[in-house]
């Protein structure tokens, strides 16, 4: 965990186009950014390109960090997430999860078990969220799909998608608050 003062100094140096500062930023957060890009894109070449694009956006100061609004890492990963989703849409690639009709909850939940087992937060919470809701959250968050795109992908009515997603997200928030209160 980096002190905020270090992050503020680092970003100030990047604003002055200090190569060494960018190198430091990459050393500290490159793996986190690449990992998220890879999670979304499921392709090493695209993940590399999205990672490079993310750091170049910061280098070129196309967006600036406000320490008052959150940690540097969260801001950086938000940019990386949006960059990767934009790339995903541009490449018109399918998300790694390819759910068929959601009929058998157990079968649906095992369509891509390694995805959930890899995500630390979701691994602990997923057991308490119905599998069909959890997969919809993945399609929306890591797949960047809209309600209608999810409905098309899953062959479920749009209303059902909206209801299940909201329920799943509310359940996720409840579990998150319970987990946070215990720490």
């Amino acid at each position, binding site marked *: 965990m980096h002190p905020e003062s270090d992050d503020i100094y680092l970003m100030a140096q990047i604003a002055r186009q200090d190569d060494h500062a960018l190198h430091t930023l990459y050393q500290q957060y490159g793996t986190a950014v690449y990992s998220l890009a890879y999670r979304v894109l499921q392709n090493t070449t695209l993940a590399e390109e999205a990672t490079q694009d993310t750091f170049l956006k910061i280098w070129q100061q196309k967006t600036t960090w406000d320490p008052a609004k959150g940690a540097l890492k969260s801001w950086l990963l938000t940019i990386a997430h949006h960059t990767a989703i934009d790339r995903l849409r541009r490449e018109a690639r399918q998300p790694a999860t390819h759910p068929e009709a959601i009929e058998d909850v157990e079968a649906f939940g095992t369509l891509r078990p390694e995805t959930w087992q890899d995500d630390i937060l979701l691994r602990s919470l997923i057991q308490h969220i119905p599998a069909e809701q959890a997969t919809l959250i993945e399609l929306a968050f890591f797949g960047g799909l809209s309600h209608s795109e999810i409905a098309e992908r899953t062959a479920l009515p749009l209303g059902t998608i909206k209801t299940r*997603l*909201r329920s799943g997200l509310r359940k996720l928030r409840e579990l998150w608050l319970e987990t946070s209160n215990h720490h």
Partner: protein
Amino acid sequence: MNRNLDRTTDCDAIVELIPDYAFGLTDPAETARVEAALSACPEATAQLIDFQNIQNAMRAGVAQVEPPPRLESRLMAATQKPTEPRRLPVRWAWLATAGAVAALLLTNFYWFGRINDLTARLNTPTPQIIGNQPSNAFVLANTSDLRWVRLPPSQQNTGAAAFLMWNAESKIGILYATGFPPVVAGMTYHLWLTRASEFLSGGDLTVDANGKGALLFNIQEPIDKWTWARITVEPIDGSKKPSEMVIVNGKL
């Protein structure tokens, strides 16, 4: 009219939309409605913060995968700025200008000759970017249609670089390489254009004893449709896909 009841009802409706809004799932009308009401709905704001914290955790909580070592060097190469030209005293400026023009003409005659040789080999009409110029100079037209990129070295501390030029929507491009080391016998430099997992051969690049070379290439679809260009070392007999020995690599 009970304004407090109306406000509560409105806020209840906004709270219902918060999960969708937080995950970018609201339509434009819903988005505008949420954003207009947030400042007056503390519960909605509090839930939005919770969802943002959840999203931060989801992004940070993905399985950690080490990026390939080449990524950092590519990133740092992409940030290299061109060096600023030094300004000469005014009294020497005219000499420098005359020298530069002479050098440019000589160089252009050389490259125009090379391009003519390459054009003949390619057996196509003179490329669009040269056009029907009245003089024999190869003119770098300063038009909005001209595209050019620098392909930086894929590894630091090498002098290799390449420049790729083409007209918008053209299938013909010119590559100029400099600082390339000699290639071992049986191998050659090769240009590739890539996008996602696809790659397209642009042809072999030959460099002279000074590490300079040029390639005029004509591909099956507009260069603008591709996203990256790289030069690799390949067997002289040809390769089906780019090797890992990347000399220069740049985004188009």
